[in-house]
């Protein structure tokens, strides 16, 4: 009898292990802060779902290419990407419609995060503000147009047009230069000032290094990179230009026909819950898209937090970015990079 019980118990254990291994969710995420995500999100989720989480990382281009290449039989179940990259995938009909009734936290999200693409294929999970970081002891930045001013000539860097920050900078420069709709004219103006610009950076870490070496004293950057500036010992300040700050949103999407929808919804709902969004915010990884998250001033300092700030951000619609990006890049390469 004893033996039989043992065998039954062992069989039971094996069965549990088998189920755990059977249930696998594959997610595709940005490569940064993976240790923090593991602690705040992946490990607790695996415990709750009794499943294995396979995490794939890489830059957006690689990850999008993978989703596209495996469209017929998706490898990735859930991906987090920028709103405009999501729109590009949605245009190629690679994304599943998200049934918001299966996300219990859906109603808690900021309205702009609920259906950012307008076709129910994406849900925003984080916002970021972008403004200008500058050396407060050397210069004062009051407007986006100050980036092209004589005072910072030869010591200013701009984001390259190919990254996410590039179009955002164009948006704000266009506004500051008095022709908000005309990016082409702004690119021409930047081209005329190309010799005054130290470089066009691709990654915020690259910019942080240049600013810490005092090569650059002012540059537009996303708030998510603020941490690498404020702790450097140099007097860096975050500008609040009169045209306002810009920003963007990252979204989660589900691939069409992945066959793993139940687990995907469970994971998305968990990530959007105020519990997880608070934990991720407190680890200073992502700013919350869940309006119910309450943060201390100290934690909020490094993030893009609060309805007032989020509603004030000047954003470009994902549709506009996807429709015009090729033309912007072409003109930028011809007139700015040369």
């Amino acid at each position, binding site marked *: 009898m004893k033996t039989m019980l043992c065998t039954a118990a062992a069989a039971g254990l094996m069965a549990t292990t088998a189920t755990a291994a059977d249930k696998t969710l594959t997610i595709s995420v940005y490569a940064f802060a993976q240790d923090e995500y593991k602690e705040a999100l992946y490990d607790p989720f695996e415990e709750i779902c009794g499943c294995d989480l396979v995490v794939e990382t890489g830059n957006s*281009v*690689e990850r999008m290419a993978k989703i596209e290449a495996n469209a017929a039989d998706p490898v990735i179940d859930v991906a987090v990407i920028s709103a405009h990259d999501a729109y590009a995938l949605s245009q190629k009909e690679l994304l599943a419609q998200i049934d918001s009734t299966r996300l219990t936290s859906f109603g808690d999200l900021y309205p702009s995060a609920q259906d950012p693409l307008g076709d129910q294929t994406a849900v925003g999970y984080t916002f970021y503000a972008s403004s200008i970081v500058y050396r407060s002891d050397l210069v004062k930045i009051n407007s986006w147009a100050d980036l092209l001013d004589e005072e910072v000539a030869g010591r200013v860097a701009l984001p*390259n047009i190919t*990254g996410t920050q590039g179009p955002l900078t164009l948006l704000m420069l266009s506004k500051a230069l008095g022709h908000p709709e005309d990016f082409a004219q702004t690119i021409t103006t930047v081209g005329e000032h190309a010799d005054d610009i*130290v470089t*066009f950076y691709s990654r915020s870490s690259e910019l942080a290094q240049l600013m810490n070496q005092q090569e650059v004293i002012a540059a537009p950057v996303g708030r998510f990179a603020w941490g690498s500036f404020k702790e450097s010992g140099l007097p860096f300040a975050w500008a609040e230009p009169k045209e306002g700050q810009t920003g963007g949103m990252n979204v989660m999407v589900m691939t069409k026909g992945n066959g793993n929808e139940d687990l995907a919804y469970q994971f998305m709902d968990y990530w959007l819950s105020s519990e997880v969004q608070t934990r991720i915010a407190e680890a200073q990884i992502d700013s919350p898209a869940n309006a119910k998250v309450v943060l201390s001033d100290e934690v909020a300092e490094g993030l893009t937090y609060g309805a007032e700030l989020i509603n004030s951000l000047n954003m470009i619609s994902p549709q506009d970015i996807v429709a015009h990006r090729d033309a912007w*890049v072409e003109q930028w*390469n*011809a007139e700015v*990079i040369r």
Partner: protein
Amino acid sequence: MFSNRKEGLVLALPAAAFATLLFILPVAILLSEGFRPSATGWSLSGYVDFFSSGLNRTVFLRTLKLGALVAGTAAVIGYAAAFSIVSLPPKSRGRVFGLVILPLMISPVARTFAWIVILGRTGIVNSALVGLHLTDGPVRLLFTETAVFLGLLQLFLPLMIISLVSAMENIPRDVIPAARVLGASWIAVFFRVILPLTKEGLVIGGTLVFTGSLTAYITPAILGGSKVLMLETLLYQKVNVSNDFVAASIIAMILILMSFSANFLLKYIASGRR
């Protein structure tokens, strides 16, 4: 060595199969992308499109120019260095040769970052320029062609010196004194004795330096950035930013062709000079 040709071929088979399967075939597949810009079929339109862009033409010419400049400068400095190294007594020759090779043992990333320290606004060069009142303020050196040129020259100069030293070691000991005794100036000695006798070394060194400069990624990426794009940094952008494998494959093909052409050209020039 072998009793018949067959044995030799059989022994070469594993290496040949390895190279074909794991190198030639993948490279051929990769390069063929450039001739298939659309799903419809083979065409050269990808190449036409590539060269119709002003930026691409500028990047191509800049890469060619910097490669040639680096190889040329390396040859001039390399000859002087190699000549003095072979003139040293054997014991100190080994030591100096070791110093030449030393930079090759340090990662290019570390070496390139050292240039940032040297060429930056607060770097050694600018501190000296300002300290000596040669300029009013710091000069911009980073993210210029000069920075990329210096970085590449420092990176590949040892290869030129090594090639030239081994070529010069093979020059019979008496030919230079003989030329001098017969009344040749040092310039004549160089062009009519040393150069013809070391041209093999110059071809090897020149090809290594030129090809190295074309295909270096880290140095142009760090010292030139997006303002001084080279073919290699453009290739990276095409793959990682625009996911444009057709353009990337075209750039790869251009780089391969440039390397081969440089080698043929140098060999041709060398064989013509007698």
